[in-house]
């Protein structure tokens, strides 16, 4: 029966209030890290208090108390957001506003304010975190928003917990196809105005200054630097996986700093069999460095700029994952251009490292060619040096100390010494910073490069050959190039001193865990590539699928599937829910429907009991009178008699008899027996004839 409520004032029901609070908690929970602690604590207290007042109206805070809280929170948040430049301020403002509003939850209008703010908070949340779990969580947040909205417009009599969840889930699921289509085809345009994006700086294996010897221990992390997929799905050989990031051209005696380089046009016109095309998905790094396979040629992405030292840089700091396509050559032919600014690549401080200078002088006295000098140096490395991740500290004439004293170190030490020595020897050289290696993921066919694979090597300018890559590390430890880094050093304690590495090492040791991790990373990769980086994929994807994009096509693409989808939802909504029927009753309906096909009059009338129906049928169909009688008797016993007193096979018997009846009716129908002289179903008459 309908419940009639007068709804002149639209007050929120307790159920709606509960859901509004649940929504608020769910939506703002992930952002608690970004808001000041005092706000989180105040919010927690406020929400628990509001929840308590829902149950009983005892804990009422006086008006002035509320006023104090409101003013204090507003002042605090204003101070906080004026100090923080990024999104934290915005997020705090939104959350504080919603929290304060939750104290005044009375009318439907208040509920609406909360819901709308919650929508916005949910969206802002994705600016902080775009991982897959956070996306799933975002879905849950949206569900609670819909639930709250639904509860606000539902009667107070209905269950408040599961019913709205079910209904909201249905509504969201029905909305998803349309959402996907919009997501797919909505044109992605560039930012309308520049926004400040503050992000905690990601750890990288690279820094903008290279000063070997400062630290005695290399701490590296296993976090992902970038991922690369290749157009032909084949990665280059391990020894060719040099990922160029930056070049260091200026040496001040202690360390190397990044060279000022000029922008350069992309070299897009090279067509070569050796050309490798690939797509990079770079993790955020808060710097402009980008990653490219040595030797980079061109990138189609507008955000990527090529520089004269052969590196790529982003036009703005990489604060979010970006993806870009690029092409490279593994072996770069000399293009004949002379070296620009030669003195710069020969510049060394006038004094220092006397032993090294002496060694170079000896080479020159011997009349070594450039190649011979390099070979001599590498031979020296190979014979007398060891590769270690925890070398001794260097002081004073660092290169002398390294070359003639400690004779141990990692890539940076070798690159440093090599470049210095070559410059002394009159060979223009520079240090290149980047990554070496990468883990091939078979499931999604991409190369995963982690931060611990950071590497440094040297490039030397040989007249007539151009810049040549020299990796002194290969001379010391060739296996560093060929074997995966983690396998190589998994036993050395200095490898990955991070605490998080423990899990990583465990993972590397257990095969299945490694598989799982690879699979997860594959999923993550796709997530980054197709969802988070969709704006970079959209054009290609749509063109691949639908050819040249035109407005008409876009509109058709939008309206045809959306129309179909909406029609389906509409049909589903307007469909009359079929009543639940007892299986025993279903057979009655089946027989009645079967007979109705022959003659409408033989359909069971709504007020007609099965007994009466069978009697009426027996009058028109005397051929099956016996079956009908037995059938209706069984029906009555099954449906109306005491269940405990029944034989077990009554039900079976009934169903068998029903089937038998149906087949007989079908046969009779074919013979044309049924349908002549049919008696009308007149329930009134039937009842009447038996009583009055």
């Amino acid at each position, binding site marked *: 029966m309908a419940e009639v409520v007068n709804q002149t004032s639209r007050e929120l029901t307790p159920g709606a209030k509960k859901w509004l609070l649940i929504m608020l908690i769910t939506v703002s929970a992930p952002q608690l890290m970004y808001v000041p602690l005092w706000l989180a604590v105040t919010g927690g207290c406020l929400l628990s208090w509001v929840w308590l007042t829902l149950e009983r109206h005892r804990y009422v805070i006086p008006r002035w108390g509320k006023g104090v809280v409101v003013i204090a929170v507003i002042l605090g948040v204003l101070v906080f957001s004026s100090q923080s430049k990024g999104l934290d301020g915005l997020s705090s403002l939104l959350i504080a506003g919603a929290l304060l509003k939750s104290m005044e939850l009375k009318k439907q209008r208040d509920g609406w304010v909360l819901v709308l703010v919650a929508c916005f908070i949910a969206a802002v949340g994705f600016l902080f975190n775009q991982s897959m779990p956070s996306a799933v969580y975002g879905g849950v947040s949206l569900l609670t928003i819909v639930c709250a909205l639904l509860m606000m417009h539902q009667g107070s009599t209905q269950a408040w917990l599961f019913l709205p969840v079910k209904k909201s889930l249905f509504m969201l699921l029905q909305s998803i196809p349309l959402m996907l289509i919009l997501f797919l085809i909505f044109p992605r345009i560039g930012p309308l105005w520049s926004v400040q994006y503050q992000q905690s700086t990601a750890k990288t294996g690279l820094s903008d200054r290279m000063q070997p010897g400062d630290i005695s221990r290399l701490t590296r992390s296993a976090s992902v630097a970038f991922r690369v997929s290749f157009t032909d799905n084949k990665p280059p050989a391990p020894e060719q996986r040099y990922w160029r990031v930056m070049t260091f051209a200026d040496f001040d005696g202690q360390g190397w700093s990044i060279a000022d380089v000029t922008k350069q046009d992309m070299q897009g016109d090279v067509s070569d069999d050796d050309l490798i095309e690939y797509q990079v998905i770079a993790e955020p790094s808060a710097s402009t460095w980008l990653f490219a396979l040595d030797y980079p040629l061109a990138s189609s992405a507008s955000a990527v700029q090529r520089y004269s030292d052969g590196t790529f840089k982003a036009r703005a700091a990489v604060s979010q994952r970006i993806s870009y396509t690029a092409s490279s050559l593994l072996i770069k032919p000399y293009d004949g251009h002379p070296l620009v600014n030669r003195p710069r690549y020969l510049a060394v401080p006038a004094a220092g490292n006397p032993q090294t200078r002496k060694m170079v002088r000896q080479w020159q006295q011997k009349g070594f060619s450039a190649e011979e000098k390099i070979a001599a140096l590498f031979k020296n490395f190979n014979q007398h040096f060891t590769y270690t991740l925890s070398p001794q500290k260097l002081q004073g004439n660092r290169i002398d100390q390294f070359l003639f004293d400690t004779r141990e170190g990692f890539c940076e030490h070798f690159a440093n010494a090599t470049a210095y020595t070559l410059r002394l020897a009159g060979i223009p050289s520079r240090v290149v910073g980047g990554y070496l290696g990468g883990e091939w993921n078979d499931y999604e066919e991409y190369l995963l490069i982690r931060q611990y694979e950071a590497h440094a090597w040297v490039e030397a300018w040989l007249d007539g050959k151009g810049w040549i890559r020299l990796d002194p590390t290969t001379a010391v430890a060739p296996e560093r190039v060929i074997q995966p880094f983690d396998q190589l050093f998994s036993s050395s304690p200095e490898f990955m001193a991070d605490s998080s590495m423990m899990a990583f090492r465990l993972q590397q040791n257990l095969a299945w865990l490694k598989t799982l991790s690879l699979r997860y990373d594959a999923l993550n990769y796709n997530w980054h590539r197709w969802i988070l980086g969709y704006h970079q994929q959209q054009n290609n994807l749509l063109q691949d699928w639908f050819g040249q994009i035109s407005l008409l096509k876009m509109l058709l693409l939008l309206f045809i599937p959306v129309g179909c989808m909406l029609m389906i939802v509409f049909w589903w909504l307007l469909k009359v829910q079929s009543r639940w*029927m007892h299986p025993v*009753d279903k057979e009655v309906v089946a027989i009645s429907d079967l007979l109705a096909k022959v003659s409408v009059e033989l359909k069971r009338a*709504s007020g*007609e*009991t099965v007994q009466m129906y069978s009697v009426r049928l027996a009058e028109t169909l005397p051929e099956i009178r016996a079956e009908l009688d037995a059938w209706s008797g069984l029906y*009555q016993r099954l449906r109306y*008699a005491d269940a405990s007193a029944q034989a077990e096979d009554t039900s079976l018997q009934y169903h068998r008899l029903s089937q038998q009846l149906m087949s007989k009716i079908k046969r009779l129908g074919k013979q044309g027996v049924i349908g002549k002289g049919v008696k009308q179903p007149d329930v009134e008459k039937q009842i009447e004839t*038996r*009583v009055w």
Partner: protein
Amino acid sequence: MRDRIDQLVDTVSSVVLGKEDVVRLAVACMLARGHLLIEDLPGMGKTTLAHTLAHVFGLEYRRVQFTSDMLPADILGGAVFNQQTSSFVYHPGPVFTQLLLADEINRSTPKTQSALLEAMEEGQVSSEGVTRQLPSPFFVLATQNPTNQFGTFPLPESQLDRFLMKISLGYPDADTEKKLLKHGDTRSDIEELPVCIDSKMLQDIQTACQQVAVSEPVLDYIQRLAQFSRSSEEIVLGLSPRGALALIQAAKAWAYMSGRDFLTPDDVQQVFSSVVEHRLLIRKDLNYQADPIRAILTKVDVLS
């Protein structure tokens, strides 16, 4: 015992000619321990039916003619001054009997009607501070003239439902009437009829009727009927829960008489009209051709 019931019905029908269905309903009403209201024009055989029923059940029987100046004490009894003993002695009224035929009940004033109806409800009479139990079994067979007749006090709706059923005999059909005319008055034969069911057996049967099983689907059906009557346009006041209970009670007796120990919707439909009609307030100012009560039966689906 069921043969005895059939035999009883046959016996009554041999006196009240051509009305076997009504007789069955009346018997069912008594088996369900309910009081019966017979509404009909004078001369249709109401009294004969009541008299015969009393006889074949072997019940003690009294008849009270209700009039407008009747007082409650005229039915319930009252204290009479005895000159020999110089004290008031309670004289039981006609209500102290196993079967009371209350003739033309709607001729008396509401006060008197109430007194009887209260006694029916409670099975006892309170007079001058003493409560006296009515005999068991105790039935009231009341007759009433159609309420639109002149000089009647219609029974209040709230008290009408003390009667389990309201039936009406109606005119006999042509054949029966001819037979009736030929045989003349059959009333004198009543005394010679055999007693078919004695009061011991009656009580057993009543208990058996109570034990008829009512399954969930039937309860559902009854609930739907009640629900429909409440939302029907033609009916001002729908069936009360008490009315629905009465329906089950009567239908159980009918089921028992039909030889079943469980209730089916057929039983409900059979007794529906007579149980329900006087419990509903039907809107009179609408000109409906169809009987709204039977419309309920046709519109409510038996299968849920």
